């Protein structure tokens, strides 16, 4: 794995340049979804319902040849973020840049093909009525990747690239196993010769032994084709194996970012600590990971981000949106300053690691 340890983890685009230029970047991206009010509320003319802030001010920068791991619990906005970057949603606010040019107003067809996605579910992301060959040919023709006479050859090349036999081109998705289907999904993404590959939970639906082959394939392809990759996953162990740099998301914001080994080795945000500590370890005592020192006092009171809709949600009760650090209700080390929301703050020292936690700035805060 090529180490990008020298690249600063600064998320602002104007931060000092690393070894290679930025290929994809977002600045202060917001993606809100309107919630329709129930008819009773409309009748009563009550105040409009707050939108769901799925992505709430995210800045990221992906360099050429780099793999950025995006982790977080379900509902933290990591999939929405990747779909917004892809252009599947029009962002509420903020800027997406590809190779230095802003994509405001949506990407053009030419730009669209440069950022491609590998979806989670290899069963529903492929058209069951088209053979693999038809699927790839359609893409190659629409985007005019190769002259029509060449499409057949290109399809066969793609099959070689993802390690499938050439006969696979004549078959339909249901004739393949989960791992093979995911290979087809990767071939579909690679058909457009993208510069950036977004893998949204690309290995989550697979068994461990198959998962390993797909991860190895993605790593190989990245090196072979000089791709940059955003690897979205809830699986910390997988992200650790794949990524050069990691961004941890919590409730629509990035709370910690830095080189993979630094973040996993010395996590500084309490949420990152909780997340890494909760991963089940082989043969470890269960209490060890449920953890006293990783105490999550309010987790028993609906710590889950998805629980926000619940009328019983701790978040709703304890503090409204926009009031202080969003991890505060679950945080074992929350203090007065947490009533204002921290930005991503660089950690003291030389590591290009940032955390959205006031303790990073407070030297007397013991845990930082």
């Amino acid at each position, binding site marked *: 794995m090529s180490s990008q340890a020298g690249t600063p983890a600064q998320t602002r685009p104007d931060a000092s340049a690393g070894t290679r230029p930025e290929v994809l970047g977002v600045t202060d991206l917001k993606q809100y979804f309107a919630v329709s009010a129930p008819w009773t509320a409309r009748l009563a003319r009550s105040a409009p319902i707050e939108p769901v802030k799925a992505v709430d001010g995210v800045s990221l920068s992906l360099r050429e040849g780099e793999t950025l791991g995006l982790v977080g619990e379900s509902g933290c906005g990591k999939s929405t973020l990747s779909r917004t970057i892809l252009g599947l949603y029009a962002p509420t606010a903020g800027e997406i840049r590809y190779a230095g040019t802003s994509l405001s107003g949506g990407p053009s067809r030419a730009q669209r093909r440069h950022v491609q996605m590998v979806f989670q579910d290899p069963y529903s992301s492929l058209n069951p009525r088209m053979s693999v060959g038809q699927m790839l040919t359609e893409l190659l023709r629409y985007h005019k990747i190769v002259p029509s006479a060449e499409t057949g050859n290109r399809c066969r090349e793609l099959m070689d690239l993802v390690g499938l036999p050439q006969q696979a081109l004549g078959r339909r998705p249901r004739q393949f196993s989960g791992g093979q289907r995911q290979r087809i999904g990767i071939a579909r993404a690679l058909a457009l010769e993208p510069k950036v590959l977004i893998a949204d939970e690309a290995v989550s639906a697979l068994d*461990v032994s198959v998962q390993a082959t797909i991860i190895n394939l993605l790593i190989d392809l990245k090196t072979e084709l000089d791709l940059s990759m955003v690897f979205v996953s809830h699986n910390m162990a997988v992200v650790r194996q794949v990524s050069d740099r990691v961004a941890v998301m919590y409730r629509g914001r990035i709370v910690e970012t830095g080189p993979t080994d630094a973040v996993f080795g010395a996590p500084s945000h309490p949420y990152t600590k909780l997340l890494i500590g909760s*991963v089940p370890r082989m043969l470890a005592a269960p209490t060890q990971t*449920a953890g006293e020192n990783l105490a999550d006092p309010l987790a028993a009171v609906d710590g*889950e981000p*998805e629980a926000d809709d619940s009328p019983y949600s701790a978040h709703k009760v304890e503090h409204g949106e926009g009031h202080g650090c969003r991890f505060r209700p679950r945080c074992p080390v929350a203090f007065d300053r947490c009533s204002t929301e921290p930005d991503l703050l660089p950690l003291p020292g030389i590591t290009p690691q940032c955390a959205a936690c006031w303790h990073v700035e407070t030297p007397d805060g013991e845990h930082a």
Partner: protein
Amino acid sequence: MTAPAQSGPAAPVLEAVDLHVEIPLPMGQLKAVRGVSLSVGAGEAVGLVGESGCGKSITLRALLGLLPVPARVTGGALLLDGVDVLGMAERRRQRALTDAISMVFQDSLTALNPVMRVGDQIAEVPRRRLGMSKAEAHARAIDLMDQVGIPEPEQRYRAYPHQLSGGMRQRICIAIAMSTEPRVILADEPTTALDVTIQAQVLAVIDKLRVERELGLVLVSHDLAVVSQTCSRIYVMYAGRVVEAGQSLPLLTRSEHPYTDALLRSVPDPDATVERLASIPGQPPMLVDVPPGCAFAPRCTFARDVCTADPNPPELEPVSVGGSHTTACVRHQDIDLASGAVSAFVAEKEA
């Protein structure tokens, strides 16, 4: 009712002996479970691991008589306190099994009734099965919700499933499973749909109940780490058979079956970065037309002619004389499996 303490760990509460399950399909009989023997004692946690399609969920459902329609048990015995229940009449068998055994499913949202208050769903079972009055059942439901760690149970009694988070819903499912005062809980991937931070809590709840109530627990999971933390004994399944069984520690540190070893190697480690993840080439066999001999042989790096010489699949045999660690690898004495990741972990701990 709960059995008195006289049944020690030696007497299993639930035992399956040479269980066979077949599913009739147009192309032939799919042999989903091909002779599985397993047992669970009071207060014991056993794990059933394997890749999808290996028959672990079907085995679990067969234990409770909950097989999906065309599938049926075609051989073997199912012993509850030493009594074979498969010979009983249908209604008696279901009554005996459901009195003693409960199940927790993977997806709590589909397991629960969406239009019924969660508290009523817990109280329903004590009312119907234990003949409790409405007030008694209500009190019992509140008590159970409290025990599975649901805060403010009085208020949440009235909640509908969609109003609760995934972790809370799974706790409700555990409370429902506990409401019949079972002696064995079967858990089919109970935490797979949950986030890691919540997974740890739900596993802790299950473990607490197991210890407090001397429950037997059969945990099915594809996550070896989860099983290794929760269970004292592990059965590894491949292609409808148990290929290795034993106490968790020796099984995971000194695997005696190449499949277990390969499976362990392919699990990514959250605490270290490796150059390249190990994977298992090939695919599991179709269980309609099972190859002769060891079903793992076509994917096994250690396979020789001897592995497929006998058309019958290899039986489990003890690794050492009189030991509880058994393997179905005929070549286990000739090959040396040093499970990389886990051995390193143990070496590190011992150092």
